[in-house]
Every structure is written in structure tokens, then in C-alpha cells.
């Protein structure tokens, strides 16, 4: 539980840094240009390096976790995506993990009966729901932000934004994705705090990204709905960054710098943290390999020969006993045993 305290302290520091930097020292260029660039670079090269590192490590054995019927006799129906036997089916399986969180959807929870001697199992989809909500809201929010990075804004961004604001309440219009994002992250956090065994396994590494996301979503919401922000200036700054011709714009407001500093932190933190699970799923051998080991030879690049106990040594030791029992030896072809 100390982890939550560490994570909170880290977050407070991360908010204070741009606060002091901007309000106190006026370091707008540092926080508006240098740090975002550095964070992007760390994110990009960090993720790339990690993926390359993973991809260079071999898969000595084909060890898919099979979640359904294998391909065997042609009259038995194979469970193609839970027990894939071809590359296409493996892709299907991985995509179902990436887009639908297939494995998480299976979640069950045992309930120990009142007598203590019986267990039943209930479907437990909460984690799946929170996770799905969070990831899709996150995706939509990031996608919407493309309007700051593009000129002219491509139509899909506008379309998503229109769709996202379908509630048509509030001025400016309330974006569902931002709300959902904030709620889902809070629910994921609440889960960690309320369920005792989750509290027990949680580390600072688990709380920190959640706090960071809450702070990012909150500062974003504050800018959009409460404090207000000079959107054209922000867009000018961001367009300067993406076109590698950074310009400093005055009068953007502290909140924006805090927001962008926290996003930078998240980006820089990403490649070195559990957030890399996003890439890991594609490399996970229990999901990304076909269960066709018996049909197609899989090569282990570091395979080596072993000195096993040979038949000759075996026969040498048991020759007399085998002869007496009528078990044929290697050098005699006559068999005294039956035809079965």
C-alpha cells in the first residue's frame, strides 16, 4: 500500500515542476518545446528498442495455450480462434485479444458457499468492461487530439469528434470519450483499492500510470470545460512542433503546460514500464503461435544434442534378465513372444 503514497508524491512533484518552471521561472521554451520533443524521442526510440529486443529473442518452443478444440480428425469441429492451427487463425486470435480482450472476457470468479465446502463460479466481466471502456475512450481521445496536429483537419477526426459529442449538452459540447476515460480510470483505480488481494499485489508501478492518466484527463477537462484555453494559440504551438519549426506563443496558460508535461511524462515512462503490455501481446508465445507442433516442425535455433542413455548401454546391463524373460535382444532376430 506504500506504493500508492509513492505514486501520489511522484504525481504532485510532476505537477509542481511545470508550475514552478512556468509561473516562477518563465521557462516556456523548455516546457513547450524541449521537453515534448525529448519525450517523443524517448517514447519512439524506447518502444522501438524494446520491440527489437523482444523480437531478437527466439521462441525455442511452440507453446500456445489452447483454449478450445484442436484440429485433429476431420469430423471434429476445430475451435479455430481459441486453438489456431494456421497463421491466419493465429492473427485472428491475436486480434481478438487486441481489440476485444478475449481472454479477459473469460473471467470467472469463484464464490465459496456459506458452508465453506462448496464453490460455484460466477462470470465476472467487470474488469473486462472497465478495461474495454478505458482503452477505447483513450483511443478516441487521442484520435480527437489529431485536430491539434493536422491542418487541414482530416475528415475522420471531425467525424469522430461529432460522434463523440452526440449528447449535445454543455458549451463547449461534452465529449463522451473524455468522460468515459476519466470514469474508467477511476474505476480501475477503485478496483485496486477496494479488492483486498488486488491492493496486496499492487505496486507503485500500478498506481502511478493511473494517477498520471487521471491528472492528464482532469487537466484536459478543466481546459475544455472550465478554465478555457486559447485553442488557436495551442494549435499554432503544436503545429510548430510537428513541422519541426517550433514557435513560442505567449499567453497559453499554465494549465496547458501542466497537461503537456504530464503527457510528456507518460510518453517517456511508457517504454520502460508495464505500459509496454500494448506491444507485448503481439509477442506473447502463448497467444501468437499456432498449435500445429505435431504437423509442422518448429526449429529451436539454440537446439543442441544431449547424451541420453542409449539402448546399447541398457541392453548391456539387462542382457541376462531380458534373455531369461524372452525379450528379444538387438543382435538376435528371433522372437519368442507373440504376435500382438
Amino acid at each position: 500500500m506504500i506504493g500508492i503514497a509513492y505514486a501520489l508524491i511522484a504525481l504532485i512533484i510532476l505537477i509542481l515542476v511545470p508550475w514552478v518552471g512556468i509561473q516562477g521561472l518563465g521557462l516556456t521554451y523548455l516546457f513547450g518545446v524541449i521537453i515534448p520533443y525529448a519525450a517523443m524521442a524517448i517514447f519512439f526510440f524506447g518502444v522501438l528498442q524494446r520491440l527489437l529486443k523482444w523480437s531478437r529473442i527466439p521462441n525455442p518452443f511452440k507453446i500456445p495455450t489452447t483454449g478450445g478444440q484442436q484440429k485433429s480428425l476431420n469430423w471434429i469441429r476445430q475451435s479455430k480462434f481459441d486453438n489456431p492451427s494456421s497463421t491466419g487463425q493465429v492473427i485472428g486470435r491475436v486480434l481478438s485479444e487486441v481489440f476485444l480482450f478475449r481472454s479477459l472476457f473469460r473471467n470467472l470468479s469463484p464464490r465459496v458457499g456459506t458452508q465453506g465446502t462448496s464453490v460455484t463460479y460466477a462470470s465476472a466481466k467487470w474488469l473486462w468492461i472497465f478495461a474495454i471502456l478505458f482503452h477505447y475512450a483513450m483511443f478516441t481521445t487521442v484520435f480527437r487530439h489529431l485536430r491539434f496536429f493536422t491542418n487541414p483537419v482530416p475528415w475522420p477526426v471531425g467525424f469522430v469528434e461529432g460522434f463523440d459529442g452526440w449528447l449535445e449538452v454543455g458549451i463547449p459540447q461534452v465529449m463522451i470519450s473524455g468522460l468515459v476515460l476519466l470514469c474508467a480510470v477511476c474505476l480501475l483505480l477503485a478496483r485496486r483499492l477496494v479488492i483486498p488481494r488486488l491492493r496486496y499485489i499492487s505496486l507503485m508501478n500500478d498506481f502511478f500510470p493511473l494517477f498520471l492518466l487521471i491528472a492528464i484527463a482532469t487537466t484536459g477537462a478543466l481546459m475544455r470545460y472550465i478554465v478555457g484555453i486559447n485553442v488557436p494559440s495551442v494549435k499554432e504551438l503544436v503545429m510548430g512542433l510537428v513541422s519541426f519549426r517550433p514557435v513560442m506563443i505567449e499567453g497559453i496558460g499554465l494549465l496547458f503546460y501542466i497537461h503537456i508535461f504530464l503527457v510528456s511524462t507518460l510518453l517517456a515512462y511508457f517504454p520502460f514500464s508495464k505500459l509496454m503490455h500494448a506491444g507485448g501481446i503481439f509477442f506473447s508465445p502463448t497467444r501468437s503461435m499456432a498449435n500445429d507442433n505435431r504437423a509442422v516442425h518448429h526449429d529451436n535455433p539454440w537446439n543442441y544434442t544431449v547424451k541420453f542413455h542409449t539402448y546399447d548401454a541398457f541392453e548391456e546391463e539387462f542382457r541376462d534378465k531380458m534373455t531369461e524373460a524372452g525379450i528379444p535382444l538387438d543382435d538376435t532376430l528371433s522372437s519368442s513372444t507373440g504376435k500382438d
Partner: protein
Amino acid sequence: MIPSRLPQERIKTVADNLPKPEELSQIDLSMPDTGWMDTPAIFRKGIYCHAARARDIEALGMPNPRDWRVEDDDWKLPHNWQDVIMDGLRERLEKFRSLRIFMDTCVRCGACADKCHFFIGSGDPKNMPVLRAELLRSVYRHNFTRAGKIMGKMVGARGLSETVLKEWWYYFFQCTECRRCSLFCPYGIDTAEITIIARELLNLLGLNIDWISSPVAKCHHVGNHIGMEPQAMKESIDFLCNDIEEITGIEIKPSFNRKGAEILFVTSSGDYYSEPGIFTCMGYLMLFHQLGLDYTWSTYAAEGGNFGYFTSHEAAKLLNAKIYAEAKRLGVKYILGGECGHMWRVLNQYMDTMNGPPDFLETPVSPVTGTRFENATSTKAVHICEFTADLIKKTKLKFDTKRNDHIKLTYHDSCNVARGMGMLEEPRYIIKKVCNNFYEMPEETIRERTFCCGSGAGLHAGEDMELRMRGGFARANAVRHVRDKHGVNMLACICAIDRAAFPTLMEYWAPEVGVTGIHELLANAMIMDGQKERTQDIRGEDLPNLEPEDKGANNV
């Protein structure tokens, strides 16, 4: 009649050391007040196994052979043991993508936590798969990640101390490598894989358990787990043939080490030396005889169940190599494998890579039906349930299912076959053709979601009986459910460890439920050419459901 091959020690063990089921099922699921890193493992009797013996470690040429005791403070480690572990871990991080991914991607979402039968049955937080993995992951962070090096405990990193090493030993020998957690993990993190590699590391220091290293040594040298010599193995199988003759009037003479046979049959030794496995073995013998199959047993490759797999990848490879070597020596066309769980994990997912490809064999074709087993074109190894299901589908066998009418059956999917292969329908197809009263356990506890027997991966010893009963609680609970609801009195499985472990487990949690293999049921119902009037099942017990006219009708 058939004598009991093993003394009924198990009943005594259960009675002596164990709390009553009512006590054991009071499971405390609350978490300790201290964090898991600050809660050292307390070794409780009944939970852990005896230490490996020097002679068995030596037999395989593995490191640090010496006699040691778990209870002693001094585990007689080499002076540079920390370097050995760290070098071993570094090497494996470069060799196994699985390990690196599983160390890096866990988000501690907790989806796995309550999937483990050991956690459900014990409430020990370190039996949550996520924490079991963190035991190793914390050391990985400390030594192989920058954040861990700098921030230490704050980010869940800790150095490798003797306390940590002992904690590893205690908990990595409380995992049966059943992969249930892996099914539910959103990233497919497989604790079995982590346990396999952690045990491999422990074995670099000679820290195995006796129940694993002794069978491994015997299997390596003599050919099977209990060190049954070739003549004794033949005698044992001949004995089963005598029993078959008494029951059916049919004389069977199987061959051993016969060159030129079409098929090499390999199964777990549990099938030819102890009840109730021997009845399944009688089933194989009767089936093969009825088919007139051109096959042979081997006294050299006499063991399918590979305990090397519970030791290290290398030990697994070492033992498994004998199967292909023998197939080559005898000049058979392919390999038929018996009902065994982790044997099939190895045959299905490792054998071809470790010991193959066996170019000297042919793609398996059923000599009876002509079916080509396309799913085994490289390994050339067919599971007997695939083989038999095909026979029944092509109506090559005749059954008098009334002979199984006194049985109300349920079926346990053995973990390795379910989650390391996906053979779910073949056994069910056979069951439904030979047995009229079949009831499934609750769907959350079968097929790919099946629960372990609690004794797999080498933990089927006597001294860890409490662990086994706790681990098997979830499985037994589901059996008890169908026992109470449908009057189920028999549990079928296709794993030798299951067959060895379940009788005790059932006796403890779900009395009145017997244990059988599928080929025992099949042989019980199978109509054999030239059989005499069948009045007994293949356990030698009188068949209760046969009317006189039915008995007459059996004579074909």
C-alpha cells in the same frame, strides 16, 4: 483375481497427517497485514516435499549433488550460488522470449489471482499466479531493469537472498504447471512457463524434490519411474493378460522390443504398475488384440510420463530422446501414445522440436480405417484417443454398453491435454459411445477451464498431502456437485497422474466416487471376437446390470 499392486498406504497417510475436510475447507482469503516482500515464507509440513537425494542428482550429471534436508538452515549451496542463479537467469532471458515477455508485460490486473486451484484451496496470497511470478520478477527487476536497480523496493524490486531463494523453492514447488491462469491472462502470461524456468534455475543448485529427481534418475537409467526392470515390466503386463484371459477367455500375448512392428506403443508406467491405471492398460491390450494391431511395447522406452519436464528442458529432452531412438531401432512406422497428461504436453508441444524431426518414421495411418493423421505429419505420434475415436466413427468396434450401466460417469479434462493440446472432443466422443450415463461437471470447471488434480508436475508425493488436498479442492468440489446431483460414482480421466492422485482426493472430498481411464470403460463395453460369457468387468467385479439373456447375447 487381480491383487492390489500397491498397499493402501494412502488411506493411512490421509488419516494420519491431515486435518479433516471440514477444517481444511475453512479457507482464509484475507490478506496478511505485512506486504508480501516483508512476509517470509513459513515452511509448513504437509505443504512441501522432501529434498532430492545426491545419487539421483548425480545420475543425470546435474549440478551440486549432495544429500540435504529442507528443514535444515544450511541447504549446502555452492559458495557462488548467487552468480549461478544470475548467470542462469541472464542466459534464459536471452534464450526464451516467453520469459522476457512474461517478466516485462504483467500489469497486475489480478485476472489470474483466483484462477489457481492452489490459491482457491489455500488462500495463501503467494499462490496467486501473479505473486508466484512476482517472486521471480522482483529479482529480475532488481538485476535487469534500470528502474529496479535505482529505485529498488519502491518499484517492486529486491535482491536475491537466501530467504528469497528458499521462498522460490517453496512456491515453485506449489505450482502444477496446469496453465489455467494463462488462459485467463490478457497477455497470455503462463505461470507454467515461469515455474518451469524457475525450477530449472533451482536445479542449477541441486534444489529439486525427491519425488521428481528419483523418477527422473530411474527413467533415465532403467526406463520408467519406479525403476521396474525389463523382465519385471514384461511380467507385470503378462499378469494383466492373465487377468484379461480370466475375464474374457481370450489369450493375449503382447510383444516387447519387437523389430519390424508397425507401431511403437508408449504410455506412462503408472498404467502398468498400479491401480487403477492397470485397468486402463488392460483396456489398451484388449483393444489392440481385438484390432490385431501390429505393435510392440518397449522395455527401453518404457515411460511416456516425462518427469524430466518438471526438472529442466534439458532433462525433458534427455528422457524423451529415448522414444525416437527406440522407434528408429525397432524400425516402426509411427508412435502411438497412451492416456497421459503431461506426456502429451511434451509430445505435442516439445518433442518434434527437442528430439525431431523423425525423418525415419512415416505419417501415421490407422491400419484399421486407413485414416491419415494429418495433425501428426511431423511428430509421427498419435494420441490413443484420436486413434480410438476414429475407429468408433468408422464403426470398427462393437459395444455392449450395458456392461457400463452400473457406472454414472463424469469426465475430468486433464490440464495438459486441455490447455497444451486442446483434445476436448475425442475423449468425450469415445465416452458417449461406450457409456450410457454420462454427466458433465459445471462448465466453468471443464474443457479448457478444467481444474488440476492438485498433484501434477511432480507434486504427487505423500509428505505434501495437505497441499494436494488443498490443490484438488476445486476439482473435487465439482465432482461432488455431480455426485450429489446425478449420483455420479465414477470419474474418468486420461492422465496417469490423475489416476494416481484422484482416488485419494475423492476419498477425502467426494467419497464413493471411483476413478477410471477411458480405455478401461471402452474395454469393459467392447465385444471381442471369441470372448466367453462376460460376467465381470475388467476389475474382476461382477456386472450387476446384466440379465441372463444379455449375458447370452454377448457371445459373438
